């Protein structure tokens, strides 16, 4: 794998995760507008949208961040190792 392939692969990963992120955030105001009552269904006593925006979105952000960081760092390490072996 070359540095250029690697950069493309990273961009693809970033774009995929960004799409998940953007949809899960920007869908909420739209859903609030279109199906307001459904969004207020009580879950654990809280209106669903409070639980989702107040807590679950944060958990999603953490998951996205950890997946991205682990994969990117692993790929970069692999590329660096490969360069080292190739150089000898």
């Amino acid at each position, binding site marked *: 794998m070359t540095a250029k392939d690697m950069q493309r692969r990273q961009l693809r990963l970033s774009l995929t995760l960004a799409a998940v*992120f953007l949809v899960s*955030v*920007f869908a909420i105001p739209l859903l609030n507008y279109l199906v307001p009552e459904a969004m207020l269904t009580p879950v654990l006593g809280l209106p669903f949208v*409070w639980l989702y*925006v107040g807590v679950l979105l*944060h958990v999603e*952000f953490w998951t996205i961040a950890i997946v991205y*960081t682990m994969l990117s760092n692993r790929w*970069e390490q692999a590329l660096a190792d490969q360069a080292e072996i190739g150089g000898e």
Partner: protein
Amino acid sequence: MSSQLALVAALAVLIATAAIGLYSSRRTKTLSDFWVAGRMVGVFTNASAIASNYLSAASFLGVAAFVWASGFDGVWYATGFAAGYVLLLLFIASPLRRFGQYTIPDFCHGRFGSIRLRRMGILWTVVISSLYIVAQMVGVGTLMESLTGIPWAWGVILLGGVIILYVAFGGMTGVTITQMLQFWIMLVAMILPLLVLLSQHSYGDLLMHAFGDAGGVTVSGGAAYSPAEQATIASGDQWIRPFNRWDLVGSLSLLVALVCGTAGLPHILARFYTNPDARKARWSTVWVLVFVGIFYITTPIWGAYARMILGSEAVLVEGGVPNPNSMMLVTSGQAGEWAVALVAAGAIAALLSTVAGLLIALSSAFAHDFYGSILRPEASDRQKILVAKAAVIGFGVLAIAAGLGFRGVNIAWMVGLAFAVAASTFFPLLTLGIWWRRMTEAGAAAGVMLGGTIAAVVVVGKLAGLWTFDQPALISVPSAFLAIVVVSRLTYERQSLDVRAALEAAFLALHVSEPPATAPPRGAGEPGLLPAPVPVAWASVPAPIRGSRPRP
């Protein structure tokens, strides 16, 4: 509200910060120490410092108050502020660190080889950070007065003076250590009193009184609030529903500003340059998301307790602003004096850390980006450090003066504006500049200026009463992206081959991994320490082309 214990707690944080900041000045010897803490800040320390830099008193006290007054719409603030770090991580953090300079204007200059673009970078850094710091300084006065009873103006001068002192002596090295400690004070102050509240009023109570019919708070004290103010208070069942404060378009626009703006704030991005390498920059961001997330998960709970315990009494203060004392009011009747003092300490820590970070960003725009890179690049490191210290003092005094002059301004709105401008200028510049090979200098300039101008026009028009729309991001951010793409496409083919080769080399510098940072060169006078103002890529391009207007 003010109490002896709160005064003692606030002063203790102030004195401890000053002492640590001054002590660390012994470790601030080189330019790199001053601007990027020698690039040797570990993941945990840096993540704490970034979170602390980011979380101002507006977040610490203001978001809880916003939830108290407006209900669900306030929860968006809490989560939107954290969400910005996701895009920052996915697209900006590690390439920017790999590029390896000090500031955003350095990026402008290094990526596109243009002094003109560096100047624009300086302009927008100063605009964004000024809006932010003025809001903070106004908040300083209000907070000090209500927490400790120190008269408004003296609070601004006292706190401002302490911050100038330790930032001027300690630079980024001092700011890093103090910000880290301040973050943990803040987090403890946020969580500990809340645990006491939870032990006194169960989750079930909270649900019933804040969310259920039993809590059907109606807006009382009608005489105290104007009709416009009453409209911002969510009464009864309305509190749990969205669209109290903004309609659908306003909500979307606010989200765009928060999600994109964080990734364009100069004082936040400056902290990413302090990471030892790109991998650690990523892990720092992960931890920032966790720290900031925990912080913002607690704010709506505070807001709900305020609604349960305080009803709608005193929910707004002067100017229709949600009462920033909500957390102190809630704790004072319930958890006792120590909790009020702890909240006071947390609020002071939040203010100090943010203002210190902003002072670094502002003074670097002058001392590093203007004096050290345009006016007198040949100056010695000694001279540059002296100018940096003078710039900290100069901007600090200006910030105190502005704080005194702008008393009564709506600070939450000003901070929101800083986010909108950052989202419309640096966010498009950085994301496309990092990921699009064929972006040109003219495209960058067009996008930054168009985005920033639209944001400014929307706001000025709103202030002049031409329209009521005050969330520019939904228009200005896409406009900036579009301008960059269109102008770059039109101009790329007209660049000379030299310029194209240099653009390509600068692009590669963002993406090719550097060797792991074991021991970056340290010590004054070492040439390897300072990033060249322009990467080597641009050295072979004839000077006139690098100048203000690239025309082959």
